[in-house]
C-alpha cells in the first residue's frame, strides 16, 4: 500500500478525458424518528479543472449535505443517498466499494470544513494529523512525513512552520488553523477541493487572506474548487460559476456575471436584492419573506412558491419546474424565468 494514487489511477472506467466532476440528479434523505427529511432533491452540477463553482444558499438548503454525499462521508444512518450519480472522471463514486471509495478521498477529492477548531483532532499535534496522510496513503516514514508536512505548512504560509509542526490545534489562531486545514486537504494533491464555508468562522480581514490563499493554490494546481457558502460577497470575488440551491435543488446555475447582472430565478434575484448596498443607504432593505420549508414537508410544485412574487397556480402543482435552459451552460428551474430575467 505504498502509492495509492497510482493504484487508483488504473481503476477501471477512470477516463482522463471525462469531466472532472459531475453530479447528476443527486438525492439524499435523512431517515429520522420524526420522518424522512429530503435534504437534497436532485442536485446537478459539473466542475472543470481550474474552475470555481460556488454553491450558494440559505442554511439548511442542502449545501453541506451535497458536499458530504460527494465525499462519501454522510453519517449513515440516518443519511442515505437514494438516487443519482457522482461521477469523477467518468466513474460513479456511489457505485465504488467502500475501500476504493475511501482512497478517492484526500487523494482525488478533498474537503475543508467550516470550523477548523472542532474539525481538527484536539489531542494530536498538527504535524501528526498532517503526517498521517503521508504515512497512511503514501507509506512514508515518520521522518519523511514530517518533512513533507513542514513543506506544506510553508506553502499555506504559516510562519515558522518548522517550529509549529509540534503544536496542537488550540495553540493556533483561527486563521492559522484554517490554513492547517487547507494544508491537510491539499496534502495529497487532489484534483477537486470542496470548501464548506471555509471562512464563516473567521473575521473579515482573515477571510480575505484565506480566500486569496485558496485562489492562489487553486491556480498553481489547476484544481476544481467547489465553494459552499452563503456569503454573496465571497462568491462575487472568486467564483466562475454559481449554483443556487433551495430546498435541496439547484434552482439556478449560471456564470457569475450573468447571475449578478440578470438573475433568472426569483430566489436568486431575491438573494441578490437582500445584500445591503451603500448606494441604497437609508432605504428599507429587501428581505425574503418567510422561512425555507421544513425538509420533511417540502411544498408541492416549486419549493419556493410560498415565498415567491411570481408564483402562479402552475407553480403550486407537481411536477416541479424542470431546469429550463436559459442560455448555453445556464439553467433555471422557474416557469417564468423570462419574466424574471426580463425586468
Amino acid at each position, binding site marked *: 500500500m505504498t502509492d495509492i494514487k497510482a493504484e487508483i489511477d488504473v481503476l477501471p472506467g477512470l477516463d482522463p478525458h471525462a469531466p472532472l466532476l459531475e453530479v447528476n440528479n443527486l438525492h439524499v434523505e435523512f431517515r429520522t424518528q420524526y420522518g424522512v427529511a429530503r435534504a437534497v432533491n436532485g442536485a446537478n452540477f459539473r466542475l472543470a479543472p481550474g474552475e470555481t463553482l460556488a454553491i450558494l444558499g440559505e442554511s439548511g438548503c442542502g449545501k453541506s449535505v451535497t458536499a458530504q454525499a460527494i*465525499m462519501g462521508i454522510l453519517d449513515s444512518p440516518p443519511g442515505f443517498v437514494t438516487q443519482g450519480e457522482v461521477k469523477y472522471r467518468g466513474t460513479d463514486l456511489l457505485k465504488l466499494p467502500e475501500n476504493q471509495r475511501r482512497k478517492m478521498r*484526500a487523494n482525488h477529492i478533498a474537503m475543508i470544513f467550516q470550523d477548523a477548531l472542532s474539525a481538527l*483532532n484536539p489531542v494530536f499535534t498538527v504535524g501528526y494529523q498532517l503526517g*498521517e496522510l503521508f504515512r497512511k496513503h503514501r507509506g512514508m516514514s515518520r521522518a519523511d512525513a514530517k518533512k513533507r508536512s513542514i513543506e506544506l505548512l510553508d506553502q499555506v504560509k504559516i510562519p515558522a512552520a518548522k517550529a509549529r509542526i509540534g503544536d496542537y490545534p488550540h495553540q493556533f489562531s483561527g486563521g492559522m488553523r484554517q490554513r492547517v486545514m487547507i494544508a*491537510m486537504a491539499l496534502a495529497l494533491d487532489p484534483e477537486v477541493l470542496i470548501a464548506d464555508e471555509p471562512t464563516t468562522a473567521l473575521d473579515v480581514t482573515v477571510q480575505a487572506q484565506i480566500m486569496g490563499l485558496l485562489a492562489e493554490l487553486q491556480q498553481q494546481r489547476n484544481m476544481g474548487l467547489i465553494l459552499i457558502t452563503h456569503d454573496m460577497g465571497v462568491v462575487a470575488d472568486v467564483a466562475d460559476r454559481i449554483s443556487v440551491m433551495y430546498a435541496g435543488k439547484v434552482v439556478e446555475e449560471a456564470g457569475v456575471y450573468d447571475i449578478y447582472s440578470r438573475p433568472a430565478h426569483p430566489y436568486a434575484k431575491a438573494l441578490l436584492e437582500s445584500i445591503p448596498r451603500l448606494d441604497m443607504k437609508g432605504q428599507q432593505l429587501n428581505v425574503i419573506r418567510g422561512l425555507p420549508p421544513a425538509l420533511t414537508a417540502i411544498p408541492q410544485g416549486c419549493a419556493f412558491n410560498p415565498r415567491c412574487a411570481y408564483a402562479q397556480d402552475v407553480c403550486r402543482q407537481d411536477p416541479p419546474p424542470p431546469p429550463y435552459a436559459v442560455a448555453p451552460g445556464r439553467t433555471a428551474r422557474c416557469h417564468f424565468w423570462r419574466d424574471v430575467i426580463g425586468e
Partner: protein
Amino acid sequence: MFRYIVRRLLQMVLTFFGATFIVYALMFANQDDPLQALAGERPLTQNVRQALTERYHLNDPFLVQYWYYMKGLLTGDFGTSLTGRRIGDMMTQAWPVTIRLALIAIVIAATVAVVAGVISGIRRGSLFDNVTLVITLIILSLPIIVLAPLCQLIFGIKLGWFPPTAGAHPSFWALVLPALVLGSLVIATELRVTRASVAENLRSDYVRTARAKGLSRNRVIGVHVLRNSLIPVVTLIGVDIGGLMSGAIVTEGVFNIPGVGFNLFRGIRTEDGPLVVGFVSILVIVFLVVNLLVDLLYAALDPRIRYE
C-alpha cells in the same frame, strides 16, 4: 507545571495533618481505658499502670498526645497495636496484599469496561448495547455485602472454580474471585462513561475530518476516537484505584484476605485506636498521591489542559 506540583504537595501536607487530626481526635474521644484493653483480662498493678501511663503519655492533654503520635508517625514509627504487635510490621504484611488485590481488580474491571464500553458506544441501541446495560444495572444494584458471599458460595464452594477464601499468603488465583467482586464496584460506571464518551466523540467534527482524509474505519475509531474518548475513562480508573484500596473492607472480610481493609475492620471493631489511625493515615496519603497523579495524567492526555 512545577509550581503546580509544589502547590499541590503543600496542599497535601495540610490535608494530611487535617485528616489524621480528625481521625486521632475521634479515636481519643472513643477511648475508655486503653491500658486495661492492652492488658486484657489480667489485673494491672498501680505501679505498672503508672509506668505505662507515663510511657504512652496518657496523662498529657490531647494536643500533646497528638504531637507525640505525629512525631512517631513522621519518623516512621507507627507505634504498637493494642494486640501488642508493631503496627509497622502489620502494614508491611497488609499493604502488598491489598495493592495486589486492587490492581488485579482494576485491571479486570477496566479491561472489560473499556472493551464493552467502546463496542456499546459504536453500536448504540444494538443487542450487545442493551444486554450490557441490563447486566451493569444488575451489578450496580447488588450491594457488595450480598455479591461477595454469593460469589463465594457459587464459584468458590458449589462450582469450586476458585478457592473460597484466600488466607495469609494468597496466590494470584486465590485473589481473582475477590478481585472480580471488588471490581464490580467500579465496572458499571467505567463502562457507562466509556460508552457515553465514545458515542459523543463519534459525533464530533474531527471524526468527519478524519473520514474525509480517507483513513480506514479502524484508524478513525482506533486512533482518533479512542484517544479522545479515553481521557475521562483513564482519570476515572485512576481515582478508582485509590477507592478500591480502601473499599476492600467487606471483600477482604468475606474472603479472609489479611489486607488493609481486613485490619481496619478488626481495628474498628476492637476499638484499636493506634491501628486505625495508622492505617487511615497511610490511606489518606495513598488517596492524595493517587489524586495528584490522576490530575497530572489528565494534563498529559489532554494537551488543552495545562497547569501553572
